[in-house]
């Protein structure tokens, strides 16, 4: 982070007032289109929606009081964060080697691989869930292979429980995760691996000591993004989960479209936003501490 900041174009270090103003104006021009778009199409509508959590119809904290009054909502938050965390970790485990394989693969194979990775990405999520139901149920494909080959004596419960939710979500997250990792790993100079080998490192050592540290920022960035995506799942846990697998997103959707209690739905959405932001701030400050320690 430090090294990057020093190398990159820095506003503070530009000398002279004219340079400073030019740089400032250029900066403003650069961010304006994106900022205007986000404010009009995202921030204002979301703010309008979330402010409903404070009015019923007069100003009130009742919706928030309700959210904390019963252990059920906090336990739903806990379930959601756990499921999101585990599915993020599982998808990283699968995506990282896949992304590495993509950058070392020959061009044609790579194109084929990318196509195959994107294929499930284009399939409707409902259909994916129903397909998983068929594959994972006790009379499904996986269980019949496992029992008929004698690996299992009785079929395993793979769906309509947390296992099913994790399988479905991890499957959904892998293409996203892989593409993000791949696009940043592409920037790593593979000659460095050869250089390491030239200096006597075996392939494993070259990977662990050279490639992996270089890919770490990409790994962290995609972990955060994927985790945030995972927090918003409501179709997959509803269809593949069991009776304990209720996520905040499922509750929000039910308060909005079935119970028409938008005030409480918005309160839950606001809390999810706050908890997620708090978690990310914690994560980044932890990161900075670690870097500062390393810098010393």
């Amino acid at each position, binding site marked *: 982070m430090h090294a990057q900041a020093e190398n990159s174009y820095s506003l503070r270090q530009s000398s002279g007032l004219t340079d400073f103003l030019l740089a400032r104006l250029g900066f403003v021009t650069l961010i304006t289109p994106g900022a205007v778009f986000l404010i009009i199409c995202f921030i204002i509508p979301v703010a309008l929606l979330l402010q409903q959590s404070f009015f019923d119809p007069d100003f009130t904290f009742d919706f928030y009081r309700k959210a904390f009054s019963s252990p*059920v909502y906090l336990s739903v938050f806990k379930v959601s964060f756990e499921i999101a965390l585990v599915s993020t970790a599982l998808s990283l485990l699968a995506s990282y080697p896949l992304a590495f394989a993509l950058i070392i693969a020959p061009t044609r194979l790579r194109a084929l691989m990318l196509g195959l990775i994107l294929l499930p990405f284009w399939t*409707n999520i*409902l*259909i994916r869930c*129903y397909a998983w139901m068929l594959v994972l149920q*006790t009379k499904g494909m996986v269980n019949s292979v496992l029992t008929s080959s004698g690996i299992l004596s009785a079929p395993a419960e793979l769906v309509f429980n947390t296992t099913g939710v994790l399988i479905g979500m991890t499957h959904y997250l892998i293409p996203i995760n892989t593409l993000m990792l791949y696009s940043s790993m592409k920037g790593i100079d593979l000659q460095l691996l050869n250089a390491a080998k030239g200096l006597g490192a075996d392939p494993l050592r070259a990977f662990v000591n050279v490639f992996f540290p270089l890919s770490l920022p990409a790994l962290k960035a995609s972990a955060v993004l994927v985790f945030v995506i995972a927090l918003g799942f409501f179709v997959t846990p509803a269809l593949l989960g069991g*009776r*304990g697998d209720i996520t905040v997103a499922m509750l929000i959707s039910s308060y909005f479209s079935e*119970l*028409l209690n938008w005030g409480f739905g918005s309160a839950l959405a606001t809390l999810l936003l706050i908890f997620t932001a708090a978690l990310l701030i914690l994560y980044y400050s932890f990161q900075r501490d670690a870097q500062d320690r390393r810098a010393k």
Partner: protein
Amino acid sequence: MKNSVKMTRRAFTSAVGAAALGIPLGLTSMKSAKANDDTVVFAGWGGNWQEAEREYFFKDFERETGIRVVDVPDLDLAKVKTMVDSGNVSWDVVQALDMWVADKDKAASLWEEIDYSEIQSEGVPKDLLRPYGAGVATFAMILAYNTKAFEGKQAPASWADYWDFEKFVGKRGMIDAPRYALEIALMAKGVPPKDLYPLDVEGALEHWDKIKNDVLWWDKFPQSINLLASGELAVTMTSHGRVMSLLEEEPDTPIKIVWSQGILTTDFLSIPKGSKRKKNAQKLISWMLDPKRQADYAKATGVGPSNFKALDSLDDATKKTLPSYYYQTGQIIEFNADWWSTREQELVERWNFWQLI
């Protein structure tokens, strides 16, 4: 409650199509509909049932009245509320669930009052002609079982049998929601139909406690029918309409319906508040209550008519596929939407709490 995606083989493809095309099609048709007064926009649940509505109701309506029916799928109550709140109402007739129109206070903020002086409703029970919606179709929430699971054995015939795991071996499925599940537990306990409401919620949950962990709790109706057809479930609650459409596409599916102790629910036709074509909407509603048309529709889909006169023109074999018939014979009970409509949120919350803790 009802999901527009019916997961049969054919529906797999149509679901992809609907997901890809549904929104843009809906938008363009709404735009063109706004431009002229000789149209009416109907919002339904999509799928085979809505295709049949076009075939048996809309086609003749268009020919007879010159009013074009634009029908859009993927109905959602939140969309209705958004339209009404923003004053930008693009739907004129909505196929509403019973609870959406039952609670007068809530219904008054969403729907126009129906002017029954303009509507031919002879044959429709008074119960189903409500200020904010006219009953158009009936469904039954019933016990269904996979016949292969009970081959050569006695099959379950009541909700009490559903609780009897020793006599009726096999996996159970149930909707993961208080609606219907509470009624079912009470019927299984032996509460007579006339004493069902007001529901003894805690008593029902206690009864579920006995088998809570041995039940597969599904979320959407297509799941129940899929799992029952594949044999993953031996017994489940489901909607009779789901069974009928599956049997129509794949007649050999080993599924049987137990009609007795079923719960009758009704779909209503309602006009979103602020509809710009209220006159046309009233005409379409009147058209869809006609006994002859409802009989044809019922024959094709297995969806029950709301106009009980429709039964008169149907043969016995067809009648016995319709919930309206079993309601008349007293074998199934009526879902009390009035009781539910003011308590739904409280009961959903109680239910979630019970499932989680």
